Every structure is written in structure tokens, then in C-alpha cells.
């Protein structure tokens, strides 16, 4: 299936679970990364997150209401009086006012924000920091979306259903798989200019993804069959103008998604207009591929 049309119903079950976990802030970081790549393009999941949010807000409403201390009320009023609103997003690091530090930093201190005296507050009460308690550290917003290209690759991998393995296997197994997938995703998210090329088998189904970055070539395998290393090897080829150049060999030792560094080339990777994978007898790459099992073109 392609990653563009949101799947429905049962096919989307694992993602429905991720959507609810996301709304609960109960996902592990690697799950958040994967789901963050999926969410912007999926109206179903955005709807699920919104619906879950309403249910959770109702759960919050079921708690016995707590009465804020006078100190908190005053702090809120005063802070609203002397804190500027911004028209756009808050700048990174601006999420916590100075006064959140224990003991209360001086208002209007070092941030370049106008001090309280420049804003008519209408509230004579001074800012009252909640002193002598551990302050909450500045919130690190974990939901930073990866860049679009990598997000697409991650979403494509997610759409392949490998994630279902995680959800349906036993816990230890699942943890190992999650860790392995996290390694793959982390590798994909490494900063730098990357070319991501999905490769498909003869039936059009995606079986592998080639990622090139800084002269390094990696293959994310998610559908190639396990090979017998004593008999055959996979060879990755770069193609340009019909000519194929062997870039490296690799073995598929597990049916699960895996990422391997296949080779490196100081120059020339940018010249390839496509990639192919062949299965070859022996351990060495021949001069030309004999049996291409997957291929894909560089699109840009």
C-alpha cells in the first residue's frame, strides 16, 4: 500500500493505538518520532487524537476540583500583567518566565523582554514567584517534527506494517524490536543532506530503502528474503544512464526490518539516477548484475 492514502479500520489499528498513546503522552520517544512523521498527513489520526483529547479532558473534569492557592492566583494575575504576549510562536526557551526559578529572578532582567514597568498592568500586586520550591525545568517540546524528506521515509516504513510486529509479539521481543527500529529511525534522522530512495520488487511492493548521506550508503531492508550467506549475497548497485556500478554487498540475516551500512564512495553517489539490488552467487559482486530483485529511481 502506498503511504499517501490513510488506511481505514482494521488496517489502521496499530496507528489508532499510537494515536491514543500520543494524546495520552504515553508513547516512548521512538514511538513519538514515528508517529510524529505519520500524524501530519493522516486526517484519521488527527481526528483520533482530537477525540481522545476530549475524552481525557472529561477524565480531568471528573477529578475533585482543586482550589489554587492565593499565591498561585496572584502569580498568574501579576504575570499576565507583566508578560508580553507574542504574535507568533514563543521563541525557544521562552516557555518559562524568569520568575519560575527558585527565588525568582529579577523581572525584566536579561531576556530583552520589556520589564513590567513598560507595560501598564492594571494589577498593582507585585509578581510573586513560588519561592523555595523546585522549579519545573524549561519544557523541552519533544514533538519536533523531522524534516519532510526523512519524515516521508519514516512514514513509508511505518506504513509497511513492520510496526505491527511490535504490537503483536511478546514484551521482551517487542522491546528488542522497538530498540532495533529506534536505531534505524535515529540513523535516518541524523542531520545532514540525505537521499532516500525506496526500492520495489517485481510486483511493485517496497522491499528496501536506500539512504545515502555524506558518501555513505545504507540499506534499510524491510522486505527482502533472508539469504544463505554460504551460497549467495545481495549486491547494491548504483545506476546511471543504464550502466550499473556495484556499491557493496550485504546479507539479510533476519526477516525483520534492519539497517546496514553497505559501502561508501567518496564521490559519484550524486550521479546515480537509481539503485538496484541483485542476488548473486558466491560472495563477490560480479561486473554486472545478473538477477535484479529490487529497483528504484532517484526522484527530485
Amino acid at each position, binding site marked *: 500500500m502506498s503511504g499517501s492514502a490513510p488506511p481505514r*479500520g482494521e488496517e489502521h489499528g496499530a496507528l*489508532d*493505538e499510537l494515536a*491514543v498513546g500520543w*494524546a*495520552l*503522552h*504515553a*508513547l*516512548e520517544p521512538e514511538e513519538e518520532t514515528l508517529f510524529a512523521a505519520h500524524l501530519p498527513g493522516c*486526517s*484519521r*489520526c*488527527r*481526528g*483520533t487524537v*482530537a*477525540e*481522545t*483529547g*476530549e*475524552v*481525557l479532558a*472529561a*477524565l*480531568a*473534569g*471528573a*477529578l*475533585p*476540583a*482543586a*482550589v*489554587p*492557592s492565593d499565591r*498561585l492566583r496572584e*502569580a*498568574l*494575575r501579576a*504575570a*499576565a500583567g507583566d*508578560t508580553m*504576549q*507574542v504574535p507568533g*510562536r*514563543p521563541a525557544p526557551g*521562552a*516557555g*518559562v518566565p524568569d520568575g*519560575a526559578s527558585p527565588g525568582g529572578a529579577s523581572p525584566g532582567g536579561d531576556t530583552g523582554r520589556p520589564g513590567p514597568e513598560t507595560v501598564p498592568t492594571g494589577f498593582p500586586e507585585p509578581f510573586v514567584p*513560588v519561592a523555595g*520550591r523546585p522549579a*519545573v*525545568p524549561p*519544557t523541552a517540546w519533544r514533538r519536533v517534527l523531522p524534516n519532510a524528506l526523512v519524515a516521508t521515509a519514516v512514514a513509508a516504513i511505518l506504513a509497511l506494517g513492520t510496526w505491527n510486529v511490535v*504490537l*503483536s509479539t511478546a*514484551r521482551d521481543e*517487542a*522491546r528488542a524490536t522497538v530498540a532495533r527500529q529506534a536505531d534505524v529511525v535515529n540513523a535516518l534522522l541524523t542531520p545532514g543532506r540525505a537521499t532516500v530512495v525506496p526500492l520495489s520488487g517485481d510486483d511493485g511492493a517496497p522491499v528496501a530503502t536506500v539512504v545515502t548521506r555524506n558518501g555513505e550508503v545504507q540499506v534499510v531492508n524491510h522486505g527482502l528474503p533472508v539469504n544463505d550467506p554460504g551460497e549467495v549475497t545481495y549486491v547494491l548497485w548504483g545506476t546511471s544512464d543504464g550502466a550499473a556500478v556495484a556499491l557493496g554487498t550485504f546479507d539479510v540475516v533476519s526477516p525483520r526490518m534492519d539497517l546496514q551500512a553497505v559501502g561508501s564512495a567518496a564521490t559519484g553517489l550524486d550521479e546515480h539516477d537509481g539503485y538496484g539490488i541483485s542476488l548473486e552467487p558466491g560472495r563477490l559482486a560480479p561486473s554486472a548484475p545478473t538477477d535484479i530483485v529490487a529497483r528504484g529511481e532517484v526522484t527530485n
Partner: protein
Amino acid sequence: MRAGDRGAFEELCDRLGRRALALARRVLVDDAVAEEVLREAFLAVWRDPGAYDPASGSVRSWLMDLVHLRAVEAARSGPGRRRRPGEAPPLRASSGEEGAAGGGGPDPVRVALRALPDAEREALTLAYYGGYTQREVAALTGAPLGEVKSCVLAAVRRLHGELGAGPLGGALGSPAVAERPGR
């Protein structure tokens, strides 16, 4: 709430502040940290009310989401900050609390929560009120992770139907899915 509308901001504080604080205090051990969380969240709202997107739900759910996120981040940022499983939060506190239903009949949300199968209620409440990740819930309960995830989804789906929340285009409001039993 428009930018600069202090009256609207104070109304929001009045309308949702107590619930939001109750949520933060449920997740966190230390009331002072909970108040800090609440203050940060409301200040974020005050600074940038345009961050609210009506397409993503009600103001209430947006604010509660913000408070919950900050509360779980605070809980995960340091040991001893969150409640231990089974450690009941103060049901009536020194600063004074009142019943959620305002003295009317039984609160429908609590009724629906009580009606959930035990495993579902446990998984959902540990995750939401406890601030635990689903993997932590699995470790706490001894249930397989996959089961925790399906329990949480089933619980939310049941509550969504039970509370008559409107569909927003997601899996919970989709008729094809809603007709299925919770599991």
C-alpha cells in the same frame, strides 16, 4: 481568546483552573510543582493564545492537554516527583476541594470509568492520571505491552461512546469502528 484580552484570560483561569490544577496534582506528588506546572501552562496560553487551533478540539481539551504534557514531563524529569502506583492522591486537601459534580447526581464520567473492565480502567488511569508511558504501565502491571495498548484504546473508545462525545473524524467516532465491541 484574543491577544491582549486579560478579561478572557482570567475567565479561562476561573473556568478551567481548578480542574487543570487537580489534574496536575494527580500526576505529581508535590503540590508546589503542580502549581508551577499550572502557572507555566496558563502563561503559555496567555503569551500565545493563537496556538489554539479550533480544528483540533475544544479549548478545554487543548488546555488540559497542555497541562497534562507539562505535568508528565515534570514527573519524568526527577525522581520522587510522581505518585507511586496505588499511592492515593489527597482526595480532600488542605487548600479545599469540592466534588466534581457540584453536588448533583453521580458524575457520569466517574460512572463510565467505573464501568470499564478492570484491566482497561487500570491501564488508562495509570497512563493518564499516573503519567506513565504505556511501556511503564506494562512493567507495572505485568501485562504484555501490546495488551496494554489495546486496553487503553478500548477504554478510550468505550468512554468516547459512553459520554456521547461527537465524532471528529478519528477512529473513535468512525461508525465502522464504533460498531465493534471494545476489544
